């Protein structure tokens, strides 16, 4: 309950989350290009 602000950097979990999201984006785009 303090008022300190820290710049929040990436950590392992966030990198995994980002990896999954970007993989999802790549999957979506490739699916789009094949189906459309």
């Amino acid at each position, binding site marked *: *309950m303090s*008022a300190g*602000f820290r*710049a*929040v950097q990436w950590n392992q979990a*966030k990198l995994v*989350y*980002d990896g999954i*999201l970007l993989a999802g*984006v790549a999957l979506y785009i490739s699916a789009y290009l094949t*189906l*459309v």
Partner: protein
Amino acid sequence: MLTMILSIGPLARLDRRFLPLLYNRRHFGVLTFFVVLLHASFMVEWYAVQHALPSLYDELTKVSDYGKFIGFPFKALGLAALLILFLMAATSHDYWLVFLTPPVWKGLHMALYVGYGLVVMHVALGVMQYDYNPFIPAMLASGFGWVAVLHLVAGWRERAGDRAGARGSDGWLPVGPPLSIPDKGARIVAAPDGERIAVFRDGAQIGALSNLCPHQNGPIGEGRIIDGCVTCPWHGYQYRLADGCAPRPFTEKLVTYHVRIAHGVVEVDPRPLPPGTPAAMSYE
């Protein structure tokens, strides 16, 4: 990506198992902004590579086109959506949440719905006009339909919960018998103006506090009493049940409400007291 992001809110209200998605929603949003920025830069680059940037400029500034529906400059819609996402990404850090105050910050971030509408129209008036593959409108309609249905269902459920308490004759809101409030937990009731009140029970002590945590407006009523203090489930901010004040050395204060027991039913007075007013009662 926006369809998924917009689904997280209602899903989390409908089933608590989706809550972990809610914790990372902000990060998801900032990433979406970057993906959109990439898309925008690819599009501009497409024009630049053909030395056709002036024609892009002409497309966006042809005033007569803005009067049409089918011919509306859809790229302008995309740009507007990009701007909204940029504003949201730029203010996504907690510093802005405090600086703008939680209600203002939340209001700004509700602009995502405007952004979503712009994106839907950007696709409808853009690629759907050139490429007649039925897959595109199917995806667009199903995504939008899914988000709309989810919101309606979750909203219906929340409204039903808020309306469930009938009004007492003098305006006090009935909560239920004292034992219907889980020990060390709360029941949440809604005042006529929509404000939610969390009525906690700690053994034989009953107190009513505002459901909004002063930190980031988290739902205090969904928290528990830990170490003798009401604890907000979002970031663990704590308040005494007796008077809604955070224990020293912290200075946060919650709005409190009078409670009474009438005919064996706990009732709460929806008129708020100044933050930090002692208002809890013991019923034994």
